[in-house]
């Protein structure tokens, strides 16, 4: 297999966001070493500036409809890739903003923290453009590398060490599965690029794709591959948990969409069963186990698994509309989950605890934080008029058009189950009286993150049309997918006839 690497300047333009971010990453490293006395907040602001510059490039690409493919189709830049890159870069910027206060807890390597976060973002940006198995493997491992370190960043904290170790061992195991799966698929088809594969259902290819799915399932935390999630989320520094719960899921879903909708499009009847099973397991298991949690980070970890189950409903629909719904849902999930974690960071900074019992009376101690948490949890639960409700409904509509009744029924029942544990937190915040009535204060950057979360959750919930237009426009290349029958306007019976 040979590549003809003739890169013109116009081709490099497609890589502009990544190039900007890479340069900026180097800049942050250099500044960190060159000015050791520089307050680390400045470094955070520097990183955020770089991310915003990247975001600017991406928005410009999206508006001007820049698209293309590089390196023999290994790297594609279409509007879906741009959507996921905006998703990743935006969440990274917010996570860095939410980290500024938390970083003071680290004894060492405060500057490197920002570098690692941005580096993972870079890896995930490549992931969302990955269009073949090799670039998938490389970019996935590249992004995970940063996370391995970040999860164990609290060196004195045993829980953090355990989390890092657990994440590392299981992550490497998943990487092994991925590599094995890739080699099997390559051996069967002789192709690496998704769109070139002429698959037939040979045992090698099936096992290969199952292994690849397992590795990606590990990234998103779907149920048979979820075992690392609660402990890792619990032990990791909370901003890293927030990051881990959002950005990698977005990047992994970008790849899942490409694999299932491009490479495996003709095998839909087979993988629908797989996805339905994984989705049902994820939602039901995570929601039931979440009821028993006493720690807010673990609760959000299980809630995240359940949310992934919900997103998989859209993937199981296997239509363009399902694809749109997934992206819309992830957008709603970004704001709600990030906002919830921001509140957790703020509260744990003030009272030094992540136990749900310590949220007692938060409604009196900090009405703003309690109200924000209420909004975020209700959005995760899917209560109107918040973003999560529209997201869930969008996914259900996409799925019911494909006739996935069992899945929708399970999904609806799970809404009720999840309502219970979210309301338990609400109860502690609003109904229980505080044991310590001192007010909880919140720093400026945290407040900004919470405001962004609130704004996103409410705006998407109340006026979703621009966002729906965006995701629908971003997946136009999937227009060749089977169109749900109901979208084709049937001939109306004549009026009054």
């Amino acid at each position, binding site marked *: 297999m040979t590549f003809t690497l003739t890169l013109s300047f116009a081709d490099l333009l497609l890589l502009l966001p990544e190039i900007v971010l890479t340069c900026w990453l180097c800049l942050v490293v250099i500044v960190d070493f060159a000015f050791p006395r520089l307050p680390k907040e400045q470094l955070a602001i520097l990183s955020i500036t770089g991310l915003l510059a990247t975001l600017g490039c991406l928005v410009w690409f999206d508006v001007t409809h820049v698209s293309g493919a590089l390196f023999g189709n290994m790297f594609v830049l279409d509007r879906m890739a741009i959507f996921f890159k905006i998703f990743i870069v935006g969440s990274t910027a917010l996570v860095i903003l939410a980290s500024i206060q938390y970083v003071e807890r680290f004894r060492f390597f405060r500057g490197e923290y920002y570098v690692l976060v941005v580096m993972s973002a870079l890896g995930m940006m490549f992931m969302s453009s990955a269009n073949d198995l090799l670039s998938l493997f490389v970019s996935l491992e590249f992004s995970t590398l940063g996370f391995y370190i970040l999860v164990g960043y609290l060196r004195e904290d045993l829980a953090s060490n355990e989390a890092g170790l657990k994440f590392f061992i299981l992550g490497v195991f998943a990487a092994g599965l991925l590599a094995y799966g890739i080699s099997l698929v390559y051996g069967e088809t002789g192709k690496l690029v998704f769109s070139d594969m002429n698959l037939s259902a040979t045992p090698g290819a099936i096992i290969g794709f199952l292994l690849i799915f397992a590795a990606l399932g590990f990234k998103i935390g779907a149920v048979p591959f979820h075992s690392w999630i609660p402990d890792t989320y619990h032990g990791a520094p909370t901003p890293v948990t927030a990051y881990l719960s959002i950005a990698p899921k977005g990047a992994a879903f970008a790849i899942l969409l490409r694999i299932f909708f491009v490479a495996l499009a003709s095998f839909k009847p087979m993988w629908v069963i797989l996805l339905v099973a994984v989705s049902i397991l994820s939602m039901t298991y995570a929601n039931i186990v979440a009821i028993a949690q006493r720690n807010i980070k673990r609760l959000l970890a299980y809630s995240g698994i359940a949310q992934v189950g919900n997103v998989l409903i859209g993937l199981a629909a296997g239509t363009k*509309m399902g694809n*749109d719904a997934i992206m819309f849902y992830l957008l709603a999930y970004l704001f709600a989950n990030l906002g919830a974690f921001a509140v957790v960071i703020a509260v744990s900074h003030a009272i030094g605890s992540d136990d749900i019992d310590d949220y007692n009376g938060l*409604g009196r101690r900090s*009405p703003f934080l309690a109200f924000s948490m209420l909004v975020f949890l*209700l959005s995760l639960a899917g*209560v*109107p*008029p918040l973003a999560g*409700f529209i997201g869930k*409904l*969008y996914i*259900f*509509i996409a799925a*019911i*058009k494909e*006739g996935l009744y069992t899945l*929708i*029924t399970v999904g*609806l*029942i799970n*809404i*009720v189950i999840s*309502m*219970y544990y979210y*309301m338990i937190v*609400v*109860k502690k915040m*609003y*109904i229980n009286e505080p044991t310590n009535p001192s007010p909880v204060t919140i720093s400026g950057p945290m407040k900004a993150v919470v405001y962004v979360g609130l704004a996103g959750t409410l705006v998407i919930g109340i006026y*979703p*049309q621009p966002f*729906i*237009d965006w995701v*629908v426009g971003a997946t136009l290349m999937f227009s060749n997918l089977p169109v749900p*029958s*109901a*979208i084709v*306007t*049937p001939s*109306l*019976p*004549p*009026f*009054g*006839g």
Partner: protein
Amino acid sequence: MGEYALLYILFAPFAGALALILVSNRQPMLVRGIAASAAFVSLVASIYLFYAYDPVKGGFQFIQKFEWSRQLGISLHLGVDGIGTPLVLASAILLFTGIFVSWHIRDRAKEFYIWLLILAAATIGVFMSLDLFFLYFFYEMSVIPMYLLLGMWGSHTKRYLEMTDTEGLKLRDSVGYIFNFGSNSKEYAAMKLVLFLSAFAVAALMGILLIYKYAGLNTFDILVLREHANLMNIPVLGTTLDKIIWVLVFFGFASIAPLWPLHSWSPVGHAAAPAATSMLHAGVLMKLGHFSIIRVAFEILPETTREMMPIAAVLCMFSIVYGGFVAFYAKDTKYVIGYSSSSHMGYVFLGMAALNYISLSGAVIYMFAHAMATGMLFAMAGWVYDQTHTRDLPSLGGLSNKMPFISGCFVVGCMASIGMPGTVNFIAEIMIIVGSWEKYPLQVIVAVLGIVLTMAYLFKMMRSLFYGPMNQQYSHAHDAVSAVDRLPLLVMIAVSVGFGIFPMHLYDVVRSGVDPLIARITHVVPVAQSGDGLGAKSEATIPVVRDHVPLVANNPVALTPDPSRGHE
């Protein structure tokens, strides 16, 4: 302003809630003032709506339509017909009076009013939604404010088993105890309410999604779906699809109504809620169930409704009798009123089940009338609780000396609830009973006995609250003297009695909404129309016998094709 009336009614409370966020709790008068003025705007606009609604023209009026999502086929489509109009008015009245009833709330008053306004706005939103999505949107939106209102400002109930009657005997009505798993805390009540309503709401959502899919029109618009959706005769799981959808929608929404046996969240919720919340809960929130069934099941699945409505006719008997007996034995003022409400909602189901012009109109008027009557009772139970800090009937008594105004109003409230002539409840009850008699005589007998039962438990409660020897422990209790405290009760009494004496406009409005609905469901048009009022409509369908104008049209004739219309 006229055509935007619905927007004012719906968004004034939301705007009030937004404005309240910016105000501090340290200025209680400003907080109350904002809440009251938001509710006042809503009230004035809904009074305008009620009188500007043209019953001769009928149909949906004041329509507002804004596209919300093209891809999903959702638009914010608002409009009221003769069924929605009185319920919007009732919600606005109860919101306005509820704000005055809760005037003395000290703890986190701002938050209280915010959630109360959102709750009322959400219920109002359901009553004017012509889009299935927004109907569900507002419906589900009303649940969370209830949770917070109950949890934060509610009160615990004394545990049933610890309650004794005057002879020191343990109570017999352990029914409630069993269904509540021994817990009568407000947290329990609030959580039960949320889970119960959400669980059944998702069933209704499943029904709505099935309608959306099988209609194949890529729209949630009720007006389009009822004209063009063809959901009949699709075999599924050994039955037909329309029946499955109907069952999902009916039971999904009947849980909030609350229909026996789905009622158990309701009295517990009433008991835990603060007075203004109970008023909205019993007054309008419960009517969301009936209303949504009418809007979704009756409008979109008329044939199935005719086939399946006997289910409601059976269950409503249990509602009436069970609710009545538990109310009789309950020892807690709010349980009595709560079970009485759930019993009275059985009458509405009876009126709906009989599916004729008189009974369904009666059911709609009953919803309006019950909102006023039960609103009064809850407001006064709340006042007594505020004064004595107990709702335990055996320990209360003789309060009429201390609060003559309240006890006077309470008598009126009881009379309204029983359905004395002169109140609008009487008109509603008589219409339900007369209208349903031909189809469901057994249920009508039960309903009449239910009225006797109502009289029994309300008189019993009245006696043990206001008459008999007074417990000296409560000698500090005082009457509602200030205008702020008296206003809500007087408003509700005025509405109840006013429409009881001059019901014609209310009747015309309701009939204009009920007529096309029943005509669609039963293919029967009313035989008798008075020359004025609804005459215009009947001329288009059948010749009217003008010399014979009975008050009650329960001899329908079959619809025959009108030769003058010709074929299309």
